[in-house]
């Protein structure tokens, strides 16, 4: 008996899984141990690694960079006898709109510009202090009214 339709029953093997594995390998080549060489083992770790990297990009990187900028600005401020938080606040009050990244860069590469910013802050503080010293500004007596 000859089965002429047998040839139709051969299953197509589908695409080569090699390419899919290569794709994963491009991301897992630097993992430690078997999770780098065995595809199946690496998959879970790859998922986790991708999740971590996404998380880092969106949250942790921002936090880390903010901390770094703050440290650098604080160091620059300390050279001129100003503290970090009054420095930032006073700049904002005086309508000097520089973000912390720029301020940190100024502290490194343009120390004279940064010094002048510190000078602005110091003068602003002195002004506020002097204004508060003058009693006529905040005390209202019967005679004045």
């Amino acid at each position, binding site marked *: 008996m000859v089965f002429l339709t047998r040839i139709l029953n051969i299953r197509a093997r589908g695409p080569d899984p090699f390419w899919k594995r290569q794709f994963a390998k491009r991301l897992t080549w630097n993992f430690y141990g078997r999770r780098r060489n065995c595809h199946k083992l690496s998959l879970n770790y790859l998922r986790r690694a991708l999740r971590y990297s996404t998380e880092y990009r969106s949250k942790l990187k921002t936090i880390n960079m903010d901390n770094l900028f703050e440290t650098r600005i*604080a160091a*620059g401020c300390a050279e001129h006898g100003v503290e970090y938080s009054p420095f930032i606040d006073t700049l904002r009050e005086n309508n000097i709109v520089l973000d912390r990244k720029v301020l940190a860069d100024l502290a490194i590469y343009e120390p004279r510009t940064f010094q002048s910013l510190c000078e602005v802050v110091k003068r602003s503080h002195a002004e506020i202090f002097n204004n508060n010293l003058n009693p006529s500004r905040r005390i209202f007596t019967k005679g004045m009214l």
Partner: protein
Amino acid sequence: MATQRVLQWRAFARTWWLYDAANQCPFVSAYRVVPYLQGKHKPIFHPLSDVGDHVVVINTKDIAMQADYWRTFTFFHHTGYPGGFSKASAWRVHEIDPTRVMQLSVYSRIKGNLLRKGLMRRLHLFPDDKIPDEILENVSDQIRQVQPVAKRLDQYSEEEVTEFPKFFDWPEDFVKDGYKRHMTRKKPKRRYTV
């Protein structure tokens, strides 16, 4: 490239700072000293770039502790083996090695990562103000102390004490030198070794 080279050299130069620990709290001093070791006082700071400075701490034998901390503050140690635990109060540790309390307080102030060992190597501790020349010559600046040093009563001359304005005189029959702390100290276990 000569100009750029010396600029680079200057930017990454290590400054040597002097810190006088006489009559200073070691824990608060650690807060002051550690940023200098890490390089956080420089605008070029980055956690991975090695920009920290050297700090020479002198007079560590004269450090001061607040309240009753000499007696109550305890340093712990564990060797990692069973029965390897030991502890000693601050005064005892100080008695054995007068630089040890300062060293431990700075060490515990630094975050426990791979950089800590390197940072500690840039901390130079001396019990008194006798520093070897090769270290003293490197020093080019000093760190401000964390607390003002008060003058003790016995450091004033007799004249100054008597001339100090008083509200009243003590009565004749008042016993002035009667106060003494009566306390029996427990002898600590002598297991702490340095």
